[in-house]
């Protein structure tokens, strides 16, 4: 008697569930009248899990809605037999990429049910093959869990070797991982070995050859073995990552004459799967390492930024303006402005050799020691002498060194003194004259010689004079032809600036330096300008401008950093939080535009921010060196207004008082955002 299919369902269900989940297919069994009896597995491809099959009474077919959205999947149907008679239908939804066959699945199920009477020949061929592949899939399913337990490459190698030995019947072997940078020169980056008595591995040349084939290869030699080839049956199985061999499993046996082709095939499959896990481990490792380093740099950078003087340095009748641009996130330059006493200030400008975390740390240490020495009221040359002692012994001849200009200035008499440790000489311009005076005493670099002494020189300024300190990043800035900016040009600019205020002079010089070297800085740039005497121009007297600059590569991922910098500086200036938030939002929008449309996500130039607080207004100037990334203003558009940039523009207009865009010739764009601030 023919069994009723529905009565077989409890028996079929575990098997069907298992098959469907292991093979990544969906299986449905319907009765002859179309009733759904059993649904198992998930529809393959990117479709919602809830996409159940539906029996269409009109067509008499099972339909998956997924079929309309998943061109990668296809449905197969086959009669389901019992006692030689069709009792229902098996439906199978499979990814097109697989060759799993509905008939074979049906036969397997029928056999499992003991319901097979007919088609015995077919069963022998197809079902046994399917059983093998079912077992294989199961094995890999298990294997995946085992590989996944490995925490590092070495563990993975050990697991892989054990698994391959078990599957092939080998008794000994090794796993070799190639050094990533030198393919096919096998350095034992990671290896495990199960010894077979005397070590009998094939030579690297042989392994290399097998790896190039990309398939498991038999590498055993004649019975005696050769220098290259072991006498024992030995196979080399490549471990690939994305098709490229990155290592190999070598398996040997003593007890048998050879390895079967099937065993080699299984070993190859195992190694392929291990390659996937190896790749995962490596990528995870790289991500963790990259995250760690970038966090370290971020900490160092934010620490170092805090060390630069902020807007808090205020002397009633002394104008101070400075620009600082770091090439690396961690800069080698630094400057400092300190009160020594109510009537004396100290200005430090220094350049630490190198651009690395080490340079950043050295700068930090030097700054702390210098501050301590300055506080003690020492003379400038004594400050340098003592600093050199500390650095010489601390640096332990590491090859790092510091150039430093140390200047003390009496803000009542405008008499000053200075000492110089191998730094570019400061100079000043007298108020009326066009002549420059160079503070040209010099001495050895800090940290190189033991027991160095320095000369102290004196000078006297008068209100209106302009004193300029800088690092070699300015005179040595090179344009594309390799010409240096030069000290003469710097001096000429100061002469030309006449009696302009300190901030103006800094702006002018920095603009010229940028034009000279529009794309990339090659060295840090520091510029400090001091002008005895208050600002000219009446009501602005009490509100000296404070200005800082920041420059980073124009990559999207640097934008949070820019934002962070902006927020910190504004907070330093006691700008209220709502204003900070608005400006941060606007700056983020502009910079995103620059990175995305200007540099087209290639970070092919820098983004530079100049932040100025003057007379209760914050001005943020955002500079880039990109081609015009917005269409040039059309004739009917007013110049000075941003061309359409999407919703970002409306947003920017909403949060700041004024937006100004201009094309910079010969290169780049400038966006200026202005917002009045309420001091908190």
């Amino acid at each position, binding site marked *: 008697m023919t069994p009723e299919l529905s009565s077989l369902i409890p028996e079929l269900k575990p098997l069907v569930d298992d098959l469907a989940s292991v093979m990544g297919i969906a299986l449905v069994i319907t009765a002859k009248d179309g009733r759904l009896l059993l649904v198992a597995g998930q529809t393959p491809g990117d479709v919602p899990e809830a996409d159940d099959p539906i029996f269409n009474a009109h067509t008499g077919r099972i339909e998956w809605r997924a079929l309309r959205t998943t061109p990668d999947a296809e449905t197969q149907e086959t009669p389901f037999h019992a006692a030689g008679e069709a009792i229902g239908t098996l439906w199978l939804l499979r990814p097109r990429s697989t060759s799993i066959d509905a008939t074979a699945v049906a036969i397997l199920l029928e056999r499992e049910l003991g319901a097979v009477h007919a088609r015995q020949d077919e069963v022998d061929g197809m079902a046994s093959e399917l059983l093998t592949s079912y077992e294989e899939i199961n094995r890999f399913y298990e294997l995946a869990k085992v590989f996944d337990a490995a925490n590092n490459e070495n563990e993975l190698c050990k697991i892989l070797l054990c698994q391959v030995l078990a599957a092939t019947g080998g008794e000994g072997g090794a796993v070799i991982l190639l050094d990533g940078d030198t393919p096919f020169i096998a350095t034992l980056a990671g290896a495990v070995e199960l010894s077979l008595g005397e070590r009998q591995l094939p030579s690297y040349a042989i392994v290399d050859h097998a790896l190039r084939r990309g398939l498991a290869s038999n590498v055993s030699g004649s019975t005696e073995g050769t220098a290259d080839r072991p006498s024992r049956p030995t196979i080399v199985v490549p471990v690939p990552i994305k098709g490229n061999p990155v290592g190999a499993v070598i398996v040997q046996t003593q007890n048998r004459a050879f390895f079967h082709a099937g065993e080699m095939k299984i070993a190859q499959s195992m190694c392929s799967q291990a390659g996937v896990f190896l790749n995962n481990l490596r990528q995870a490792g790289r991500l963790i390492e990259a995250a760690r380093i970038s966090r370290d740099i971020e900490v160092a950078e934010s620490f170092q930024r805090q060390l630069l003087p902020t807007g808090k340095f205020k002397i009633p009748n002394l104008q101070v303006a400075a620009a600082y641009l770091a090439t690396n996130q961690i800069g080698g330059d630094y400057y400092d402005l300190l009160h020594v006493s109510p009537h004396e200030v100290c200005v430090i400008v220094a350049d630490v*050799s190198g651009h690395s975390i080490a340079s950043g740390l050295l700068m930090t240490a030097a700054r702390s020691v210098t501050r301590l020495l300055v506080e003690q009221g020492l003379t400038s040359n004594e400050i340098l002498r003592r600093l050199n002692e500390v650095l010489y012994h601390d*640096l332990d*001849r*590491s*090859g790092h*060194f510091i*150039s430093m200009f140390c200047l003390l200035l009496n803000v009542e008499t405008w008499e000053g003194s200075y000492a110089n440790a*191998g730094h570019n*000489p400061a100079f000043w311009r007298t108020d009326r004259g066009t002549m420059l005076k160079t503070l040209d005493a*010099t*001495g*050895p*670099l800090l*940290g*190189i*010689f033991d*027991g*160095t002494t320095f000369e102290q020189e004196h000078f006297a300024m008068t209100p209106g004079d302009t004193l300029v300190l800088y690092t*070699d990043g300015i005179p*040595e800035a090179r344009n594309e032809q390799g010409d240096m900016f030069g000290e003469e040009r710097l001096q000429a600019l100061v002469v030309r600036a006449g009696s302009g205020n300190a901030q103006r002079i800094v702006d002018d010089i920095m603009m010229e330096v940028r034009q000279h070297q529009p794309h990339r800085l090659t060295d840090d740039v520091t510029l400090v300008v001091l002008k005895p005497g208050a600002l000219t121009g009446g009501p602005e007297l009490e509100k000296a401008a404070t200005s800082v600059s920041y420059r980073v590569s124009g990559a999207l991922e640097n934008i949070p950093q820019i934002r962070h910098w902006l927020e910190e500086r504004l907070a330093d200036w006691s700008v209220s939080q709502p204003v900070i938030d608005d400006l941060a939002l606007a700056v983020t929008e502009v910079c995103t535009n620059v990175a995305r449309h200007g540099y087209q996500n290639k970070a092919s130039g820098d983004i530079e921010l100049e932040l100025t607080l003057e007379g209760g207004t914050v001005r943020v100037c955002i500079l880039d060196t990109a081609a015009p990334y917005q269409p040039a203003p059309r004739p009917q558009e007013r110049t000075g207004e941003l061309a359409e940039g999407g919703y970002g523009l409306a947003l920017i207009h909403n949060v700041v008082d004024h937006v100004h865009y201009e094309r910079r010739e010969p290169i780049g764009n400038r966006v200026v955002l202005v917002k009045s601030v309420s001091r908190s």
Partner: protein
Amino acid sequence: MKILVVDDEPHITHMLRVLFQKRGYQVAVADNGETALDLVHREQPDVMFLDLNLPGKNGFQVCEELRQVPQFQNLPIFILTAQGQDLDRERGMAVGATDYITKPFSPRHLADLVQELAERLPSGPA
């Protein structure tokens, strides 16, 4: 412009290398007398800074040997002497040094000196 720096203290040669390379000069470095002599022949520097206390052949011997080679009779050789070592200095000048530089020295003085030499250098190969 090619500069040969000879000193057995790596932090000093490192500093000079950075200093000169930054200004666009080529720099060769030796930390002993034998290497120095070898490099002079091989690299044909335009100027040489020579420490006196070297392992192996000392600075005096290096200077003396070089002056006996006609090709190097006019090579500017600046000996690096420590402060207060007047005897060394005199002896160095006696064996043919062009001039001496007292350690510790200002990098700017050295850079100025090299620039002056570079300006005097004939434009073609000597």
